[in-house]
């Protein structure tokens, strides 16, 4: 059994793990000599249940880190935070969050941004960032839980825009009211099973809807797709001939 501290989304979490992989997995988020905001631990039974329910967990040590993140996610609403399923990237010191059902093309779209805009675009987290509701906006925080690609950088930035990606033959990005995509957005949020935590998450979701800017990008996989979402969300003009590498 290992006990270690991580600094995640501005919180200190004490992790209790059975398998050595958990600490290795969290290596970029380790911290020391801090008072934890809360602790999480996973039982052998919970690991076994996760393995049985989710064959993609494959091994006990991987199932343990999935369970640990779920335990963390259960506590986040107390701290005005929640886990959001999406790919978060950085551009010009702001965070941009792309979301869609799995398999729609989030990863493809952020890869296109990276190709077209070069190193001005960085990854924050490719799969499950944490969003924090603050007085003056939303902060997107990275985590090591970053999907099969494992794309993350330990980084927190103000969230400039949320973009729902939909596959299409042509490219069009428009600003939307979140009310027009409530279920699509809500399905991307980790919902705790504890009633109080679920109520807290729904309250945060309501604040998220009135705080963040939302867009819908219907796009293909061309550079025009980047032009469409980039110009709509950043307000900047996209020039594909410009050298964006810094």
């Amino acid at each position, binding site marked *: 059994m290992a006990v270690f501290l991580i600094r995640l989304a501005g919180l200190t979490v004490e992790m209790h793990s059975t398998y050595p992989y958990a600490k290795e997995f969290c290596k970029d988020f380790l911290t020391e000599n801090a008072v934890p905001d809360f602790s999480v631990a996973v039982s052998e039974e919970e690991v076994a249940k996760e393995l049985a329910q989710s064959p993609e967990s494959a091994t006990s040590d991987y199932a343990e880190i999935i369970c640990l993140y779920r335990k963390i996610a259960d506590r986040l609403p107390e701290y005005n935070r929640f886990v959001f399923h999406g790919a978060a990237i950085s551009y010009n010191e702001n965070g941009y969050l792309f979301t869609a059902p799995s398999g729609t093309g989030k990863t493809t779209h952020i890869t296109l941004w990276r190709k077209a805009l070069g190193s001005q675009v960085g990854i924050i987290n490719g799969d499950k960032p944490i969003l924090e509701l603050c007085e003056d906006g939303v902060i997107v925080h990275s985590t090591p839980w970053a999907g099969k690609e494992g794309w993350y950088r330990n980084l927190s930035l103000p969230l400039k825009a949320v973009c729902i990606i939909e596959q299409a033959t042509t490219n069009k990005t428009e600003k939307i009211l*979140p*009310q027009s995509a409530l279920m699509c957005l809500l399905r991307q949020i980790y919902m705790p099973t504890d009633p109080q935590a679920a109520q807290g998450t729904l309250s945060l979701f*309501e604040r998220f809807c009135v705080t963040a800017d939302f867009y819908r990008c219907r796009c293909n996989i061309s550079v025009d797709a980047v032009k469409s979402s980039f110009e709509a969300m950043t307000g900047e003009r996209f020039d594909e001939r410009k050298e964006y590498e810094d």
Partner: protein
Amino acid sequence: MKIKDGFIKHNIGDKGVVVATGELSIHFHGMIELNQTGSDIWDEIAKGSDVPQIVEMLTQKYEIDPAFAEADVLKLIGQMKDAEILED
């Protein structure tokens, strides 16, 4: 007619969203979106109102024909029963 324990409803703008929690979430995985009328009907059922009381509320609030209101109420109640959201 009672909404099963474990459903949590929250209003977002003029819509309502409902999620299942606790033991209920093991069997009920979906989330529900309610329009304004659906949200009002849900709240009335949660308060313990019966069909005539809900129809009266809708008729007064939206100034609609009671027959239309009753049809809407019965339709939503039917859907909630089918989805095993309601119990007797």
